[in-house]
């Protein structure tokens, strides 16, 4: 199992890096969907001991939400608002990649600073999780379109998930489902907001929403 886990983690990290580097929003959505898929698989692979029903259900739920529902929702918004690619991002893609690598280094350092009390399923787990989180934050910060920011938020969530799924055993079902539900509603509401923004402003450029200041 451990090999699987590691490879999935590596793929996750690569996906995040790819996201930093890609300009086509549709591509970004696909990457995030792919990450959701990987996340679902991860929930299965990290389970040691007898495969029970619970992780299976959770995995399906995750894949259904992060792998299918969200991308579909965002794709619809994308279709309504005729934007194809992220024109002039605040940080150019090469620099983004550079910062991405820096973030990777930082997350490695942080994971050194935080020795796990118990041996983790995979040594890569903490750094990848942190890196994905940082990548998500960076996307939110550096991309102009509101849609891309939602994607960033999703990546951030994914990173946190990697962490949770990998390290936290025995979280009660109720809490996990509540968390999932919240994330779902959050993205849903954001989608609606995006829809309204698109209708009201005829654009979804977050950096042009700057009337309210001081």
């Amino acid at each position, binding site marked *: 199992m451990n090999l699987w886990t590691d490879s999935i983690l590596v793929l996750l990290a690569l996906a995040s890096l790819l996201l930093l580097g890609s300009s086509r929003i549709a591509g970004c959505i696909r990457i995030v969907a792919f990450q959701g898929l990987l996340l679902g698989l991860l929930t299965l692979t990290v389970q040691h001991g007898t495969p029970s029903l619970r992780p299976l259900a959770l995995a399906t739920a995750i894949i259904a939400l992060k792998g299918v529902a969200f991308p579909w929702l965002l794709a619809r918004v994308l279709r309504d608002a005729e934007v194809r690619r992220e024109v002039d991002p605040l940080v150019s893609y090469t620099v983004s990649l550079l910062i991405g690598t820096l973030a990777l280094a930082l997350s490695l350092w942080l994971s050194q600073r935080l020795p796990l009390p118990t041996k983790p399923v995979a040594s890569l787990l903490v750094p990848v999780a942190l890196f994905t989180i940082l990548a998500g934050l960076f996307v*939110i910060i550096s991309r102009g379109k509101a849609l891309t*920011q939602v994607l960033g938020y999703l990546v951030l969530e994914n990173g946190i998930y990697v962490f949770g799924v990998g390290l936290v055993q025995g979280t009660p079902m109720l809490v996990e489902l509540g968390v999932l539900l919240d994330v779902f509603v959050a993205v849903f509401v954001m989608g609606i907001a995006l829809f309204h923004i698109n209708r009201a402003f005829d654009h979804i450029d*977050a950096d042009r929403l*700057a009337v309210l200041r001081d």
Partner: protein
Amino acid sequence: MLLVLLAVLLLLASGCAALLTQRSFRASAGCAVGAAVLAAVLGVIPSLRVLCGAAPQSLHLPWSVPYGAFFVEVDALSAFFLVPIFILSGLAAVYGAEYLGSYRETRSLGPAWFFFNLLVASMVLVVIARNAVLFLVAWEVMALASFFLVTFEDEKESVRDAGWVYLVATHLGTAFLLVLFIVLGSTGGSLDFDQFRVAPSQTGLLFVLALVGFGAKAGFMPLHVWLPEAHPAAPSHVSAVMSGVMIKTGIYGLVRMLTFLATPAAPPPAWWGWMLCAVGLTSGIFGVVFALAQHDLKRLLAYHSVENIGIIALGLGVGVLGLSTGMPTLAALGFAGGLLHVLNHALFKGLLFLGAGAVGHAAGTREIDHLGGLLQRMPWTGLTFLIGAVAISGLPPLNGFVSELLIYLGAFHGLTSAAAATAVPVLCVVAGLALIGGLAAACFTKAFGIVFLGEPRSDHAAQAHEPGLAMRLPMLLLAASCVLIGLLSPLAVGALAPVLANVTGLSPDVVRTHVAQAGGVLSFVTAGGVGLVGLIAALAGVRSWLLSGRRVTTTLTWDCGYAQPTTRMQYSASSFAHPLTELFSVLLQTRRRGVAPAGLFPHAASLATETPDVCSERLYGPVFTTIGRGLGRLRWLQHGRVHFYVLYIALTLLVLLIWKLG
């Protein structure tokens, strides 16, 4: 004790009643004024009993707020401040009943009465409170109530600005008091006054805190900036109360703190005395010099409040010097003079503000240069204003002279029998008092002479008329009390004995002996005063006997051959004060605007001068603008771009993680 509390309750209740009945002018004014007068009667009785030697009474009830307790006490010091508070506010209320009548058409006066009674009640509480929280609450309520009274005519821009300055000043002052009381209470563990324990290392800091915090209310230079703004803005009966007794609560606080900080056991360091003398000199001289340069009668009076607060501070300074050098005579005389001046200033400054209000009420303007000849039109107001003017100039035989004499005596005593180190400050006190006295006389000859004498300088002034009885009676009573205290000064000083024992911490019989000595001196003064009055009467008799049956003609003023003297040719207030304002022009920074007469046959020429307060112009104004500009530079932080907002979050997180875990 209970009577005083009853008075407070009565004031509060009547205030609310006035608010509820504000539909009818009569009803609200009626219950407010009635309650104020009744409360005055109720409150003065126990205060006088304490002053006459009755034991101080106190009341300690639990109060469910943090560190709070309803702990009140009427001791000699409190009683001494209670008397003027009750008397002056009672009289001012009567005066206000008629004075506010002119606004009855334009607005409802319920709030005015509510806040007036609230102000009086809070002043009483401030003076009797013995718990820091209670004191601070009363102190701030006092500030707020007076603020709303100051902004009574808030439709005027100037009034709003005055209110702004006043509120800022008093609030910043209170900040110092918060620290002061907390530090006082930290050692003893309780904020009750009788639990205060002062660590010797802290006394200096505490003294400075008290000087600043209470000085802001009392109007010490350079914390006085709110005074010349707020007093003219407020209705006159309010200005009388504010200037007469409210700013004295600052003095009360300072003296009360001295009872904790300076005892014969632990005498205060000499620099406290030096500091008080320095503050007194600055306030006194600056105050009177700025008063000289004013055109607005009430503004002039406000600056005189600064001056008189300075005189009081001089007295306290001499007293503190006496304590620090262990010279009881010096201490007794200094404190006696300062405290007696508190009472006197309450009387004559209240009187003068009421008079100024009557003038503004009758002539429709407070511009001194537009007035004149009012004595013929308002004889009673004129007479009382003259008495007040003589009293505030510290001239015998009225009460102002008595308190200044005591301070002089203390200073001279220190001068004759102290080491040179002590002699220097008291020497400055002597010189300063002399200069202040001379300038004050100059200023009030100007005020009275230009406003009430000569010919009217405007139609308003020509149509002025005597106010009704409700406004005249308080002025007459105050004038009478000025004369009485002047002539019966030994009694007044005798009543000070318990207060002095309370303040200086000297043993009562030591104090009594010194008070007796002072009383001896004052009996001579009284004799002189009586002799003076008698002589005046006799000479007046002689004069009329000489003139009886002789030819007494009335003509024009001798006009040096001009064909048509007009009232515009009279000497104006500005020109009267000009030589002195020229002398102090460095200080005053007077602005001149106008057209000088030019050519062989000059036509229209004009001159307008204004003397803004140098502190607010040169000190506070720049400071505030700089702070404002500096802060404005930081506003880009909230620029409206959501990316950067998230960036803030990320950076905060990273910084914390790296800082705390790195």
